[in-house]
């Protein structure tokens, strides 16, 4: 009896510790990056071109580059991803084709990001002659983001009660009318959350843009989608490893800007989800 209680106490202690260990690193990382980098962040840091081999000036081209890449990724991954999710959730039966699609999605999610980078280099940059460009980078990131968007959107669509579909069909609705007027509006918050989380990952990735779009040092804003651009993650890599005499504060300042960019997308996703969950009636 006594032994069992001791065992219970120890087990409880260990699992509580594990839970606490989960929140520890996130606070540690954010705290450290803020402490080290906040001094570098200023209006000029956010809005000026880099100067003196990136040791001075600001991050503007990298911030704009990351914004454009995120936007481009969305323009590619959202229509294809949401479309595929609608097909899988609403139309597809269980057959060889859909099983193949599902296996493809799972495997797509498991491919290391650097392999996406190499693939993008081979297909988009060289074979399709897009060159090292925002277009090639967005396509590469877009493909990488697809599995996230497809699986979250499919899940959101499947969560809409089957009864709504039955009612709509019984009132003379076609399948597409039912999807467009009932299913998608109900699934939209979940779909949007998945899109944001997918784009957030894309915004922070370095390897896929390494060979396809990112410029080492390009102190001007891109003028077309066939231009190269600087981007925050790659810029962080460059100034942390490739530039001698780089002030540490600028490195952490850059990390902080990237972190805020990505985390604010995360917060946005959470807010959207919470806002709609309150309105949900099922």
């Amino acid at each position, binding site marked *: 009896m006594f032994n069992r209680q001791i065992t219970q106490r120890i087990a409880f202690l260990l699992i509580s510790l594990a839970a606490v260990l989960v929140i520890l690193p996130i606070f540690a990382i954010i705290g450290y990056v803020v402490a080290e980098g906040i001094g570098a962040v200023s209006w000029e840091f956010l809005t000026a071109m880099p100067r003196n081999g990136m040791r001075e000036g600001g991050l503007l081209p990298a911030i704009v580059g990351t914004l454009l890449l995120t936007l481009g990724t969305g323009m590619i991954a959202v229509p294809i991803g949401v479309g595929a999710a609608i097909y899988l959730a609403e139309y597809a039966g269980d057959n060889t084709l859909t099983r193949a699609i599902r296996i493809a999605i799972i495997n797509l999610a498991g491919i290391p990001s650097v392999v996406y980078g190499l693939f993008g280099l081979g297909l988009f940059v060289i074979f399709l002659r897009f060159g090292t460009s925002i277009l090639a980078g967005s396509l590469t990131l877009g493909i990488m983001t697809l599995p996230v968007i497809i699986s979250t959107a499919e899940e959101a669509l499947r969560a809409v009660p089957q009864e*709504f579909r039955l*009612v*709509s*069909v*019984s*009132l*003379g609705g076609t399948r597409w009318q039912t999807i467009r007027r009932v299913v998608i509006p109900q699934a939209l918050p979940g779909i949007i959350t998945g899109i944001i989380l997918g784009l957030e990952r894309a915004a922070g990735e370095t390897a896929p843009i390494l060979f396809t779009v990112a410029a080492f040092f390009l102190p001007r804003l891109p003028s077309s989608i066939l231009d190269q651009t600087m981007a925050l993650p790659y810029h962080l890599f460059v100034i942390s490893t490739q530039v001698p005499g780089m002030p540490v504060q600028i490195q952490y300042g850059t990390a902080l800007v990237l972190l805020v960019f990505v985390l604010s997308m995360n917060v946005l996703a959470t807010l959207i989800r919470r806002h709609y969950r309150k309105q*949900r009636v099922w």
Partner: protein
Amino acid sequence: MQTKIRIENLTVRYSDGTESLRGISLELYANQINVLFGPSGGGKSTLLRTLNRLNDQADVVTQTGRVLLDDEDIMAPGYDVIRLRRRVGIVFARPVPLPMTIYQNITYGLELAGIRDRQRLDTAAERSLKQAALWDEVGNRLHDPAHALSGGQQQRLCLARSLALQPEVILLDEPTSGLDPISTGKVEQTLQDLKATYTIVIVPHSIQQAARVADWAAFFLQGELVECGPRDQMFTNPSDKRTDEYITGRFG
């Protein structure tokens, strides 16, 4: 009496091998309350859902026989199912308001049919809510969310939603199973008023309800039609021993 729907030798099998209906032949009459009753698992719901081809949505593997609506075979290949569902409305056991306002629920089917004219939609909403005896309760708050209504109101909303399409036949699948006696009474009274205009086919949730509302009744047992006839005959002097045992409560 005019036959609205004629079912000829209908057999329905599901993909898991179960036979839901076996060789059913039955006539359903216009301007009557046609009751399909019997213990659960008898195939009554399946039969209802055959009448507006909602079984197309389910795992039905084979359907043989014919179902004639005004002498048109609704199971014929190429038959316009969408039009059929506008002519044959259905109300389910559990009220399922769509996640919209009361007004939008009513006009949903009309808008799907391409009707955009505000005046027509307004008129249809008022008419069908009055027919379903709900207008007095919700007429002044049509733009409230439908899920805020009580269970009984939601079910009458679902009835009104079907009526808005001005169907010819209304199918009701245990429409009062989740309702209190007062709401049940309102729904039953509504059906009595509606039969002047519509053909009503109802699966009642109890034998008492069957006896209360029926003009005509058909008794189903394990996928077979045991017998059918006018109410007085079915509930006082049935010809089949199994019907008699069921209505007197010896099984079921």
